[in-house]
């Protein structure tokens, strides 16, 4: 397992990383935790001419509260750092999802930004971030832009990220009283990726009863890319129970099939994960 030859540059600043990217005219890849990129390179399925190592850009690392009340997660923040973050600890679905990502070594090296830009169809974090309505802050020689994650992912392993554009941070809503969230999945045991995973968030003003103000469901492992399960959300808004609504988990999707699970099973088990995530989210919302 030896990759094809490549050049290596270590960026000392975000701007340097971007100018290196711009100078390489699409033939370079950014190296962060390396847990998706390096295996592809070793199999020679990816052959970048240059790696731009951003691993030491500390300004891209860590979780901070923004003055707007939103929370910004640096693209280089590892899963392990997220698990240790007090701020992230308030998000039920993050607490559910993070310990199930890879193993200790993967969580020590793998970064949330790397997962987002890789757009693996069965990755857990994109579903969590989709449910949260995350925005992605990027920078290129043309300046910064903010891209809602739902518009960022365009297909398996593809996104709107330009070759000279770097993901800086991921912004998610701050934790709010009256909200509850959960993530439930069933994993393909070899890879640990989800056969089906569901992130659910429900919320309303504390003390109020009746319909939810916020309902957000996202699913991974089932479709071409992780997606918002709008049909489930609409059914819930229309008064359906979690069990009834979850039947719409894969509406409109071409459901994946592979040696581990055929499309019929995937579609079924997606409904189970959606219902379980919803039930837990509702329970957590009720607990305040």
């Amino acid at each position, binding site marked *: 397992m030896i990759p094809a*030859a490549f050049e290596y540059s270590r960026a000392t600043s975000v701007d340097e990383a971007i100018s290196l990217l711009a100078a390489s005219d699409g033939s370079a890849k950014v190296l962060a935790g390396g847990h998706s990129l390096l295996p592809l390179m070793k199999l020679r399925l990816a052959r970048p001419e240059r790696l731009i190592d951003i691993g030491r850009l500390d300004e891209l690392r860590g979780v901070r509260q923004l003055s707007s009340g939103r929370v910004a997660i640096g693209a280089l923040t590892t899963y392990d750092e997220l698990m240790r973050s007090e701020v992230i600890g308030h998000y039920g679905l993050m607490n559910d999802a993070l310990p199930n990502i890879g193993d200790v070594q993967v969580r020590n090296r793998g970064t949330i930004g790397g997962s987002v830009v890789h757009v693996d169809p069965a990755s857990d974090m994109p579903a969590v971030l989709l449910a949260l309505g995350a925005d992605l802050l990027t920078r290129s020689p043309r300046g910064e832009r903010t891209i809602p994650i739902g518009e960022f992912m365009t297909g398996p392993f593809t996104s709107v990220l330009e070759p000279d554009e770097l993901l800086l941070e991921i912004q998610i809503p701050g934790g709010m009283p009256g909200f509850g969230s959960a993530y439930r999945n069933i994993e*393909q045991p*070899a890879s640990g990726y989800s*056969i089906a995973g569901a992130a659910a968030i429900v919320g309303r003003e504390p003390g109020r009863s009746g319909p939810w103000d916020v309902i957000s469901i996202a699913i991974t492992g089932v479709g071409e890319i992780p997606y918002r399960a709008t049909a489930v959300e609409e059914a819930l808004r229309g008064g359906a129970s979690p069990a009834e609504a979850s039947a719409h988990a894969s509406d409109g999707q071409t459901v994946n099939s592979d*040696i581990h*699970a*055929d499309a019929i*099973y995937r579609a079924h*088990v997606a409904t*189970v994960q959606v219902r379980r995530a919803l039930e837990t989210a509702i329970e957590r919302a009720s607990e305040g």
Partner: protein
Amino acid sequence: MAIDVLGAPVKRVEDQRLIQGEGNYLDDIKLASMVHMAILRSPYAHANIKSIDTSAAKSMPGVLAVFTGADIPYNPLPMAWPAGGSAGIQNNINMPRVLATDSVKWTGEGVAAVVAETAEQAFDAREAIHVQWEPLPTVVEVEDAIKDGAPQLHENAPNNTVFVWTVGDKDGTAAAIDSAEVVVKRRIVNQRLIPNSMEGRGDIGWYNPGTDEYTVWMSSQTPHIQRLLLTAFVTGIPEHKVRCISPDIGGAFGSKIFCYADMALVMFASKAIGGKPVKWVETRRENYQSTIHGRDHVTWLEIAGNRDGEISAIRVKTLANLGGRLSTVGPGIPTTLYARVLSGCYKIPNVFAEVTGVYTNTTFVDAYRGAGRPEATYVVERAMDLFAKEIGMDPAAIRRKNFIAPDAFPYENPSGLGTASGGAKIYIDSGNYEPALNRALVMSGYLDADKAKAEAKSRGKLLGFGLSSYIEVCGVAPSKWIGAVGEGWGAAMWESSNIKVHLTGKVIVTMGTQPQGQGHETTFAQVVSHELGVPMEDVIVQHSDTQGTPFGYGSYGSRSGSVGSHAAVKAAAKIREKARRYAAHMLEASPDDIEIDGANYSVRGSPDKVKTIQEIAFALDLGFSLPDGMEPYLDETVYHDTENCTWPFGTHVAVVEIDEETGAVELSKYVAVDDVGKKINPMIVDGQLHGGIAQGVGQALWEGAVYGGDGQLLSGSMLDYAVPRASWFPKLELDETVTPSPVNPLGVKGVGEAGAIASTAAVANAVADALSPLGISHVDMPLTPARVWGAMQAAKGGQA
């Protein structure tokens, strides 16, 4: 007096280096001027090679040579164990060449090799080799391969058939089945597995032009056998010109027993480039495609008996997938090592098996932990449960009813062990099966199964108990059996040991067998320390180098403890005998009057007249004063064969919970009561059981090599092939009964494969038990959530 360490849970002495990163594995070896080899492998599962253009690769930076099959004058690899040997069974043999010449039969068969200054350069140049292929139709499943009109792999093997081999009484079994009250029939699949040793394979070949000799370092379980096969059969190089060395080995599970093309290739390459050492180390992907796979049977089983649960017959028809060409002993595994123990620990009077070996466009199949015996155990243990369910009998009760009785040993089973050709008389030497079953039932909570099932049901879980009562054939030795014409592999299987007590009283033991992580350096030191009365820390065990160790057959078949250790026991006895005679000389007494107590040799009746073995060794090794006819030095070698195999047994119980909504199976409890006879080191025995159980559970729940119809290995990496992880297991609860083997003085049996033999069936039976309220009697492995849920849906559909 040295402490007697035999039977003590002594910590493994090799772990000092193996656990602390100080081991010396194949890829750790770096020799001066060493260069590197990469092998180009076929991307097609079945294709003709029209041409190979190596010119571009030869001009790449650092490249020293590029070889194709046409460059290599060696013979194909040897076939050491045709099914039935020359006993009238036609074997249509096709062996791999060192590099394929005309055609390839599986994805991953080697077609060219590059030698370069660095591994990176070799990998780069490999991409520049251009092969013109003519792809051919493929077939990967055994049932498809034997059909008329299927793609044919070899001209000499019509319908892709390697052999059709039978054992047992065909007519008697047919009569018993025809007249039985109850017959249960079932097709079951024992899926293909990938061995997944943590360290892959690799070799370094070095041709020394100064001496015209070769040294080959190899990650192999069998360096002595490989020297024999590589010289006498493959290369024609004289045996005394080749030295084979196995360094530390990071697991093997059978996959490193065999003669592989790369071993000969590094020898050829080193000589061709003028004598620089050539290293080849496989990648994990190569390991998956080009090192052997295991299992892969499709079996139609029939089990017959009466409504009281007495089993009268078992009959199987098995198709064994052997891959695109044969591995070294591929045909021996699904024949002798499988069907001769098909009746397991039961007194089943009629047994008949017909096994067809089949070529397909897949990687070759050979011995994987248990080798044939897990397949047999899976068949008979699933069959017992299917039969019990059919007549409404408790699975524990039907086992108890059919166990071979404790007073029936030695027992000759009806699938031919006792009548194997060549005059061998192999029988099951000992056993007492019921106590282990009873203990396992108590430990597992089996007696309260209904309560546990009701409690689980209230949580949305289907709970099941699964039993597996097994026997293992260990100590695969007796040469009269395994070497018999028509039965085994045409060679002996004794073991060897040399013991030297040096001047300072320190002891060096060299063994013909060798370890892949089992702790031989500890185990054999315990045995020799016990036998000679010297402290264990004064004993060192050496192995794995054909220069300086006596010939041995290597480590597999759970044989090193039961066969190898007795070579050491006998060598120690010879040491003691010579020491006794020399003590008599020193003490001016008759040898008959010398009493031995541990390390002390004293004159009977005069305990103050005593010499220790260290004092004896000092004087005898110097040899200034010797009795007439005695040679100096305490140095003895023994070649030891056995009279019979050893027969561990036990009962394992698995408890599983199935999520009714997702079909996900969780192993919630695992109990194993094993009888491996006396234990030399109980901690090592427990470790072997833990690993074996995990591997067997892996087959039941997670593992499976899957090919696409085009012969591409879809489970081609650890992203798609699920190797079990420790966190997926409950605490394994172990207990024992002890029935010493009567076959050998230590009373040991062997344990390397027991866990893997028993646990697969235990878990599969537990899943079937959990699903039985839905009317499901069997689901093929691996029991993934998708498969289990699919079976549940099908059953519900059937009810509607």
